[in-house]
């Protein structure tokens, strides 16, 4: 390949992979021309508002709609009884369970959907909601998951009584959902028995919520004559919604059109299908008019898509030198009242098997038990692949606990146990197959950048002065890109993704994907991939996503799967086009394929200067001058089924200073090094990392949805729920190494969730490290000033003046 100045210049003009191309999405957004679900209006549109339960657990005695229906402007009030004849009062969840669309005889969590009011506008609907009179008989609420399997525990799901064959395993109790385990229990137990050192820690990964700035909503429009349902939905997976809606309603999938327009952030919250969507669709079908439902922030935080709520017990076995011999993890997972987790069907605990982390651990065993409680359903992947945040948290915490027990440095113990570069691809004890990595280089680069030794020295001095300074280190490995359809499916549909590229006669292109952007800049970055592959300038490539009538079937965007799966599909589709283009070029140049070489945006005849055909020439020829027997056109579709997951990794370091009199923790420094393989758009990557770190900071330092013993949710508005402003948010320092994935067509691994997954344990590690000299090994999140002060107070630190 030529590397002349001229060709470099041509390459730069393409704005392909590796350049920080400015975003194509921005011009619309900065002019206020975004098009989010609530921005869309249709003629004759009605508004839906949901009547919700004040109780966490109660029997519904009666529902009286009379007064509400009498209010002028109210068109309908629907309850479970109204949906029953259509068999739409329950719907399947992504996790193999069912969920009540509208409460059927019983409410099982606070603010559960009981009825839906359809009115002319949202003002009338809001008035009507409080006129629907619901009589309840309160039942005892089950809030503590540790009591879910007690013999006298109230049964939450009466619809499941006696059905002990769960979706994932035998159920051991009416409130039990599944047991899932992985690894060799026997060898692991043996390793613990034989170990020189063992450590154990209980940790609670609290209930949080992704809380995108746009809440969830749906505008459904059913055309009775055509029999077609069109719905604008805040969905990270519009095709999945289409399939589920078709299955539920019996409308042929070809007559269901789901459109994910602009989405105001998803972070996992917009993966599941919610009762609000279904009721809007049903109402539209019943009334024959467009119906819009948009939830309030309080409804969003209270009822749709929470994350985590895992009670984890971690254990490590090691020798006296700190070499890890075994990992054992037991988890109690609180799924709320319906199992509505967003996991691939066969993975009730998601990708938790990545919990051996970046370490060469010969023996491991993990077990997760899911249980029901009287809380809202969910268990979504909040800016992470399914349960990866939990997995990284437990192993990173445990490595620190082990280091403290052994009196070892927390960086040293990691360097000692890392999987070595030459061990890749590395099969872990729990069945992951790490594709590539260079963990030593990453960590050492970070330690050098922050002058780690100096920091530890400073910490020594501070401790001598009675000051609290903590240094947290995390070296995480993620598993993303779900996933290979041999194991990954959602409701039976394999987790491939797709791209369809059409090159127009004049050489520009249109591409459509099965994914959907929620701020990740797909319109910008997909074009870069095609630009590099096909030599068409990014500016001339139009990217479209989110409309199921036009885009090829895909599983959507979450769990950092767009780059590992969607971008791979895009590259492969482009390569199919390029292969055809080569044949056309050979035909035009009257040489054989083998005589050609690719140079940025054209095929050249090897060794014959001037003999070349640009992609523009080829595109034109594809419509009028083809080799004999070749079909016209220049397009390709690829459904990419990844052979493997990808495994991004990183090394993060955080320095905190704690005010021991108030508990206020100040992040002095946060250094994040990420390795996501090939970097498609460094600017976008850095933006994703800033965002992920900020979300991680929020989770670790303040976000929490808690419940009182009666099942009342606490802190479910932005008064309490912690979304940091620019003032609270620390300054981020970013860095990178590049270790391409060997099996991805571009070598790229995915990045958006790494900073969330990686930063959360880093904050905990830093806070705990501040107290490490006082034999503190773990503190549960969130590390609010209140919580941290309690530790200071317990240790008597706030007294010393």
């Amino acid at each position, binding site marked *: 390949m030529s590397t002349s100045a001229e060709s470099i210049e041509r390459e730069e003009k393409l704005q392909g992979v590796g350049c920080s191309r400015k975003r194509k999405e921005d011009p619309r957004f900065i002019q206020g021309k975004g098009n989010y679900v609530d921005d869309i209006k249709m003629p004759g549109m009605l508004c839906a508002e949901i009547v919700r339960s004040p109780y966490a657990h109660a029997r519904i005695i009666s529902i009286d709609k009379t007064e509400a229906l009498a209010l002028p402007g109210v068109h309908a009030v629907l309850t479970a009884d109204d949906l029953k004849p259509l068999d739409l009062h329950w719907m399947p969840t992504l996790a193999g369970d069912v969920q009540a669309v509208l409460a059927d005889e019983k409410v099982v969590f606070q603010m559960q959907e009981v009825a839906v009011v359809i009115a002319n506008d949202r003002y009338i609907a809001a008035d009507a909601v409080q006129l629907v009179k619901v009589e309840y008989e309160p039942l005892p609420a089950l809030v503590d998951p540790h009591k879910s399997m007690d013999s006298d525990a109230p049964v939450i799901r009466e619809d499941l009584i006696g059905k002990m064959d769960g979706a994932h395993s035998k159920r051991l109790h009416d409130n039990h959902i599944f047991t899932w385990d992985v690894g060799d229990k026997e060898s692991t137990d043996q390793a613990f028995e034989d170990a020189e050192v063992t450590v154990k820690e209980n940790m609670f990964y609290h209930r949080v919520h992704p809380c995108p700035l746009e809440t969830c909503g749906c505008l459904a429009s059913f055309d009775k004559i055509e029999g077609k349902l069109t719905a604008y939905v805040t969905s990270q997976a519009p095709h999945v919604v289409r399939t589920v809606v078709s299955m539920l309603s019996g409308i042929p999938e070809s007559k269901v059109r789901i459109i994910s327009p602009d989405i105001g952030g998803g972070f996992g919250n917009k993966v599941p299908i919610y009762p609000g969507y279904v009721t809007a669709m049903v109402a539209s079908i019943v009334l024959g008019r467009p119906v819009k439902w948009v939830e309030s922030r309080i409804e969003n935080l209270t009822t749709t898509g929470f994350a985590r709520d895992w009670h984890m017990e971690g254990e490590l076995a090691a020798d006296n030198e700190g070499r890890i011999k075994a990992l054992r993890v037991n988890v109690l997972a609180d799924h709320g009242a319906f199992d509505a987790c967003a996991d691939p069907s066969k993975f009730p605990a998601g990708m938790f098997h990545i919990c051996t982390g970046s370490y060469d651990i010969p023996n491991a065993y993990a077990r997760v038990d899911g249980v029901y409680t009287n809380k809202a359903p969910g268990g979504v992947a909040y800016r992470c692949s399914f349960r990866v945040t939990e997995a990284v948290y437990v192993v990173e915490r445990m490595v620190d606990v082990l280091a403290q027990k052994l009196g070892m440095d927390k960086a040293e113990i990691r360097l000692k146990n890392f999987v070595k570069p030459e061990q890749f691809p590395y099969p872990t004890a729990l069945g992951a197959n790490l594709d590539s990595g260079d963990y030593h280089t990453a960590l050492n680069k970070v330690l050098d950048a922050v002058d780690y030794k100096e920091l530890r020295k400073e910490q020594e001095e501070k401790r001598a002065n009675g000051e609290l300074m903590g240094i947290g280190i995390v070296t995480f490995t993620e598993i993303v890109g779900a996933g290979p359809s041999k194991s990954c499916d959602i409701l039976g549909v394999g987790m491939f993704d797709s791209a369809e590229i059409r090159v127009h006669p004049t050489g520009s292109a249109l591409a459509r994907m099965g994914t959907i952007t929620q701020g990740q800049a797909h319109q910008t970055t997909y074009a870069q991939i095609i630009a590099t592959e096909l030599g068409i300038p990014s500016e001339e490539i139009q990217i479209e996503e989110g409309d199921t009538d036009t885009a090829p079937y895909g599983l959507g965007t979450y769990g950092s799967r767009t780059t590992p799966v969607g971008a791979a599909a895009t590259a492969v589709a482009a390569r199919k086009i390029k292969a055809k283009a080569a044949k056309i070029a050979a035909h035009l140049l009257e040489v054989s394929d083998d005589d050609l070489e690719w140079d940025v945006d054209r095929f050249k005849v090897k060794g014959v200067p001037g003999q070349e055909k640009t992609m523009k020439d080829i595109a034109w020829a594809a419509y009028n001058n083809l080799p004999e027997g070749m079909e016209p056109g220049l397009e390709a579709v690829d459904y990419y089924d990844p052979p493997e997951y990808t495994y991004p990794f990183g090394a993060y370091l955080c320095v905190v200073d704690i005010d021991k009199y108030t508990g206020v923790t100040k992040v002095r420094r946060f250094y994040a090094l990420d390795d996501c393989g090939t970097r498609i758009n460094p600017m976008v990557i850095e933006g994703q990392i800033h965002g992920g770190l900020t*979300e991680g900071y929020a989770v670790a330092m303040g976000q929490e949805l808690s419940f009182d013993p009666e099942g009342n949710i606490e802190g479910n508005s932005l008064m309490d729920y912690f979304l940091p402003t620019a003032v609270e948010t620390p300054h981020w320092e970013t860095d990178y190494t590049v270790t391409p994935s060997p099996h991805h067509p571009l070598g790229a691994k995915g990045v958006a969730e790494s900073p969330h997954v990686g930063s959360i344990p880093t904050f905990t590690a830093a806070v705990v490290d501040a107290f490490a000299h006082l034999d503190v090994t773990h503190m549960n999140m969130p590390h609010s000033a209140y919580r941290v002060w309690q530790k200071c107070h317990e240790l008597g630190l706030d007294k010393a003046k």
Partner: protein
Amino acid sequence: MKKTAVSFTLNNEQVDVLVEPRELLIHTLREKLSLTGSHIGCETSHCGACTVDMDGISVKSCTILAVQANGSELMTVEGLASDDGLHAVQEGFMQEHGLQCGFCTPGMLMRSYRFLQENPNPTEEEIRVGLSGNLCRCTGYQNIVKSVQYAAEKLQAKEEG
């Protein structure tokens, strides 16, 4: 309930609209006047996605009644660009990757627009405080700060030039 006639200047145009007294300004803007740039993110005046400019100050239009805007001069993100092209804050957000999902952006832009008139030459700290009534879930604010700095420099240069 009887509706009230409300008049105001919106993005330099005179607007007359009939509203219920309880109607929130954000709903009037978005639903009656179809200016959907300003968004609703929290409804409790925490997130700032509904920020508009009213008589020369930044306000959260989810916590103001439309009737309260009677006689006022309003500006929304749709009125930010002029015949000369984009406003410097709009350019800044594009140049410095100050937005991702775009949902908070109109509020951020309107606050930045006013903030830079209150403080034309701010420090990073002052920008962070000045924008503390606006939440963003995507960017982590670092590039938003840069965007505002970009706009400040651009506006300063314009002033001097």
